[in-house]
Structures are given as C-alpha cells and as structure tokens.
C-alpha cells in the first residue's frame, strides 16, 4: 500500500510540474505544424531554446519581463522565417532534416565558449539571473510555502505554485486559441493543405504563406514552452536537444495529433507512464538485475519501443481521429 501511495503521489507531483506544462505547450505548437498542417518540424526544441535565450538574455541585460517575452517570441518568429523560406516548398522529409539541423546549430552555437558572456556556454544561464523578474509579478505571497495534500511547494520562488498556475493557465489558453483557430476558415485551409496541397493551391490559396504562418505560430508556442521550461531550472543548451523534440512528438502522437486536447493528454500520460515505469522497476526489480542507474535507461528504452508500437498500431493516438491522420505522403 505504501508503494501505491507513493506511486500516486509521484503521479500527481509530475502532473502538476511546470515541466509537464512546458512540454504540453510545445506539443500544442507541434500539433499546429504536424497535426493540422502536415509539416514535419523536428526542430521544436530549437524553437524552445532560442525562445528561452531571447527571454533570459533580455531580462539578464535589464530589459524587464515583458520585453523578455516579446524578444522570446520575436526570436521564434525569426527562426521560423529563416527555416521556413528555403524548405517549406520542399517535400516533407527535407523540412524534417533541415529543422533538426537548425535546432542542433542553435544548441551547438549556444553552448560555444565564444558566446559564454552572452549564453553562459554549456553551463547555460542560471535561473537566478532571470527568474526574479517573473516572480516579481506573482500575486501570491513572495516567500513561504503552501501545502496542498501531499504536495508542498514555495508560493513564488523557484519551482513554485505561481509557476505551475501560470504554466497550466497558458496550456488552457492555447488550447482555446487552437480550438478557435482550427474551426475558422484559416484552420480549414491548413487542414486542406495537409490533405491535398495541390487541391488547395488550385482554389487560389497561397499555400506557402499558410504554411509559413503555421510554422511561425507553432514555433511561437514552442518559444513560450521553452520559457516555462527554463523558469524552473536554467537555460542549458543540452537540455533542449533532439531528444526533447522526439519526446514532444511522442507526447503528441500518444495523445492524438490533430485533436485539441491530444497534446496535453499526451504530455500528462507520457510523464506519468515514465515515472510509473521508473517507480515499478525501482520497487520490484532487484538491484542485482537492474541497478539504480539502469532504471531510468530502461524507462527510456520502453519509451522508444512504445513510440514505435504507437505509430504502427495506433497512429491516431488516444484522442485522434483516424480520418484526420496527419501522416500523408
């Protein structure tokens, strides 16, 4: 019983964290790209990282919180333009390779020793450099902790209730925005592009412009996800690499692409399942067979195999509609 108790406590803690919210927001962004427009953006982690850099560096150099957010969004827009203009016209897998390459460039350059005064190099920008600007906006008490059931977190500082509230409110707001957008004529054109680009073009729509708009919008959501992600830790380039992108896809495909709540449900389930596997393996597999270092690795192996099985046997995920499958060739 103790084990079950701690397991469900872990589940709840994981569901609440701002990290899960950050993944959900980034996955909503990828849902616009991949789920609704059929664009294979494999550089979402790059959008998150460049957004986080724009945000943290602006605040660090005294620009204030709102300018930081603005710069974060602008950085994502610029990144989307640079990426999209050469590749959106090409076939899907070209976009995939270019976006993954561009995201890697951001990560490698960000971690470069030459940029250390700006980005902090591989060590990154410490949270204390930019988090106070966010915490100053909090309407909760500035110090002290609050306990809800088994969960005790600070009101405002660090990995706080304030951050959780903001993160999950943003998730809900973005779900609402995506819902409104996708039932608008604009959203119908995006779906049309996903289904048959040539048909949409023959109706006189500028497919390139729509694809760019989709790339920018989803990328901006990636940047917001990146901001939330770094607000509980630091801006470390290596924490937002390729694997992060792949995990965002895993979340999206698990929940169901081209559905409003799919990315959110996927992010929640993904983290809950992973912590469930870790807890179970830690509890029931003797350490002679699997030591404490191998348990998280085992969980990752399960994630990889799970992604394969998911895409093969249930490509529409949990909430998706098979008729709206984003995988077209």
């Amino acid at each position: 019983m103790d084990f079950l108790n701690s397991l469900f406590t872990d589940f709840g803690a994981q569901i609440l964290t701002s990290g899960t919210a950050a993944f959900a927001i980034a996955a909503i962004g990828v849902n616009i790209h991949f789920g609704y427009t059929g664009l294979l953006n494999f550089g979402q982690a790059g959008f998150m990282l460049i957004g986080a850099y724009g945000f943290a560096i602006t605040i660090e150099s005294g620009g204030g919180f709102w300018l930081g957010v603005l710069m974060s969004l602008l950085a994502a827009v610029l990144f989307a333009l640079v990426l999209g203009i050469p590749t959106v016209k090409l076939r899907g897998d070209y976009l995939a390779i270019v976006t993954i390459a561009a995201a890697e460039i951001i990560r490698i350059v960000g971690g470069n020793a030459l940029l250390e005064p700006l980005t902090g190099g591989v060590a990154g920008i410490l949270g204390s450099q930019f988090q106070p600007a966010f915490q100053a906006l909090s309407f909760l008490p500035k110090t002290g902790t609050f306990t809800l059931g088994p969960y005790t977190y600070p009101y405002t500082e660090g990995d706080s209730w304030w951050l959780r509230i903001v993160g999950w409110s943003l998730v809900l707001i973005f779900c609402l925005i995506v819902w409104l957008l996708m039932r608008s004529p604009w959203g119908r054109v995006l779906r049309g592009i996903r289904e048959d680009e040539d048909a949409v073009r023959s109706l006189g729509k500028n497919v390139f412009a729509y694809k760019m708009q989709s790339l920018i919008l989803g990328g901006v959501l990636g940047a917001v996800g990146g901001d939330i992600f770094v607000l509980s830790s630091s801006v470390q380039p290596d924490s937002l690499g390729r694997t992060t992108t792949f995990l965002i896809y895993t979340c999206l495909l698990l929940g169901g692409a081209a559905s409003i709540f799919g990315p959110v449900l996927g992010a929640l389930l993904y983290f809950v399942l992973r912590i469930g596997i870790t807890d179970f393996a830690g509890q029931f597999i003797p350490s002679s067979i699997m030591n404490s270092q191998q348990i998280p690795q085992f969980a990752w192996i399960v994630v990889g195999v799970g992604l394969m099985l998911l895409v093969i046997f249930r490509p529409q995920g949990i909430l998706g509609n098979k008729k709206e499958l984003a995988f077209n060739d």
Partner: protein
Amino acid sequence: MHFSRLSRSRSGSKKWVLPTLVALLLAFLATFIPVGATASAAVPTCSPDATTACVRGTLLDDDSNAVAKVSVTLTPPTGPEETEVTGSTGQWVFSVHEKGQYKVSVDTSTLPKGLKLAVASKTLTVALSSLAPAAFDITGSQTSDGHVVQQSATSLYLLRVWQQFASGLRLGLLIALASIGLSLVYGTTGLSNFAHAEQVTLGGMLGFTFAGVLGLNLIVASVITVILCALTGYLQDKFIWGPLRKRGLGLNQLMIVTIGLSIALEYTYQYFYGGQPVAMTGIIQQNTGPLYMTPISYLSMAIAVVVLVAVGLFLLKTRIGRATRAVSDNRALAAASGIDVDRIIRLVWIISTGLAGLAGVLYSLVQGGMQWSTGLQLLLLMFAAVTLGGLGTAFGALVGSMIIGVVVEMSNLVLSADLKYATALVILILVLLVRPQGILGRRERIG
C-alpha cells in the same frame, strides 16, 4: 520471368557477398597491422571503486607523442598536495578517496623547451567510483626521443592545414562508408532512417565486446562485428520494415518508427555499456607518415577506399547492383520488369547495416573509442552528406561525404572545435537553399 528467376537465385546466393568480401579484405590487410608493437610500459594504475576515484590524463604533443618527465601536481580540497612525474607514455594518474573539487596543475618549467601549454591548471569536480580525466592541450611537437622540433610559424601553420585536410579525408571516408547505406535505403524505400546512427554505434559497441571484453584478435573481432551488424539489417527488414511496407505504412510514419527505434537503441547501449566511451583496444599509436596519422588510421582509410570501390563496382557492374539502382530509380517500373523488389530491398538493408557496422568499427579504432551518442553525432553529418550529394544516390553520398568530412575538419582552422558540426549543418541548409536536389540528384525527387 526469366530475369526474375535469375535475379532471385542470384540474390539468394549473393546475400553474404559483402560481409564475406569485407572479411577477406580485413584478413588480407591484417598482415600489415603492427598490433601490440607499442604496448605501453609501466603505466601507473588506478581502478575506481566505491571509495576510490582516479584523476588522470595523458600529456601528448601536437603529433600525439607522449611528453615524459613533466611534473603534475594535484591539490585536494583538504590535505597535502601530491606530485607525480609523467613516464614514457606521458600518462599520470592520482588515486583519490574523497569527492570534491580537485585542482590539477602542470609545472610548465618541467616541460621540454619549445612546448607550450595554454592552460596550466584545471579544477575538476570528482565523484567517487569514477574516472576524472583532465586534458591539457600542449602545442608544439617533438621527435620520439624527446627532442623538440623547431619550426617556423608559417611551416607550422601549413602543417596544421595539411593535417586538418588529411583528417578531413579520413572523416569523409568513414562518413561515406556509413552514409552510402543511408542513401541506398532512402533510394530504394524512400525512408529517412534515423536509426542508422545507432547501426554505426552498434559497430563500435560490438567491436568493443569482442575485442575489448572477450579479448579476441582485432581482425577477428571486426569481421564478426561486421557480419553481426549485417545480420541485424537482415532481421530488421524481415521482421520490422518488410512487414510494415506490406501494411502500407506511410513514409513519415515509418520515419517516426525509426526515431522510436533510435531512442530505444541509444538507451540500450547506455544500459549495457554505460555513458563513457568504450575502446576496442588500449593501444596508443604514434603519428607517422605523410598524413601525420596513426597506422590504424592509414589502415582504416585503405579499408574504406577498397570497400567503397567494391560497393561502387557492385552497383555498376553486377546484375543485382543494376537491379538495385533500377529499384532506386523507379520501383514500380523495376517490379514490372521482373525485379524482385523485396529481395533487393532486403539486400540493401544488409549492405547498409554491414557498411554502417564497418564504419563504426573503423571510427572507434581511429578515434580511440565509441560512446552511445557517437553515432547520433555522426547522423547529422551523414544527412548533410547525402543531401549535399543528392538524396538516394549512392555516388552522391560518396561525394557529399568527402566534402562534408574535409569542410568539417578544415573549419577547425578558423573556428573553435566545438563548432565543427554546426558548420556541416550550415552547409546542409545552404545547399537546400541553392540546389535542393544536391550535387548529383535530379530535380523531380524534391517536389
């Protein structure tokens, strides 16, 4: 029908052509390897356990020659300093029994004259039961008996340019070995295989298992590794990719399946081999010859050239090779003219994974080890190479790889070393801007 029967029987008997070829080659070249010639003498030992950690390093000059008789001092967080003098291998090691911040410094007055050290002391965070390596970057070079080579700045720079170019050729050849498979699979099935990186890593890991752990002869271990890698290609196509093609899974869907496979394999390697690089052999060789490389590098390049030529001849001259190119050009037409497309694709998978395994073995030997993430680092270089050369064209992959290899290594002359992969990726994006079909590709493929 006649052609179909013919190609079927041929593909049946030729299934193992490549691994066998590679095996013969390695056996032939074996006679040239001076294995064990430079077995190390009196290496200080330290093995990490629950109460011990090893702070260690090797002092090497620009030519990777050991720098002997240099004092290295360790300053622990508490307690007295320790000093050690490097032996003939240039190695130094301290056993420590407390975790914390340790400072390691090299006494520059004991360095041979003419050798310089940019940073003479480093601070390391050491955890128990671990190896804490500290690298010191010594510039200048000396002969093997310890005399410093005096050279003018210009000739040193030219030497460096030449060296970077040579390592570029080496990297290019190794990437070519790996990326031809990636390109062939793409050409025949349309799949961008993200798990190809892990096939390269697999080569290094299996090589380590057979040579490093089981202690087999390097050649035998390499041959077994390549054969096993090729076998994984056969099994993958038989049990995963073949059935999925029959199910009619879309290409993007398949691509995400390969990403899942790639994640699973990466962590499988970490699970079994840990996070540190593993080496097939502990032999440290000296740089020699016109390219200033280790003998094993020359050998690897020779093997790569021979195998690449063999693959080229196979594709151009043999019936089954022509059938492969036919499938690559137009699958439906190839099938209509009696080529057994599924058999060709299976053969392509075998060749692809076999070559990737060989590339992994050679890369591990050249670089002195393979890590779970090494293949991953190479994957984007491979994608850059095949895109530059023209997606799906085997010869394009070769051209692209050589260019990427040389550019990546030469960029070291003007940019810092950690940016070299970024250079390749910038090229990739520029190519797509200017000539999306690549150097040897054709326009209609990109639409």
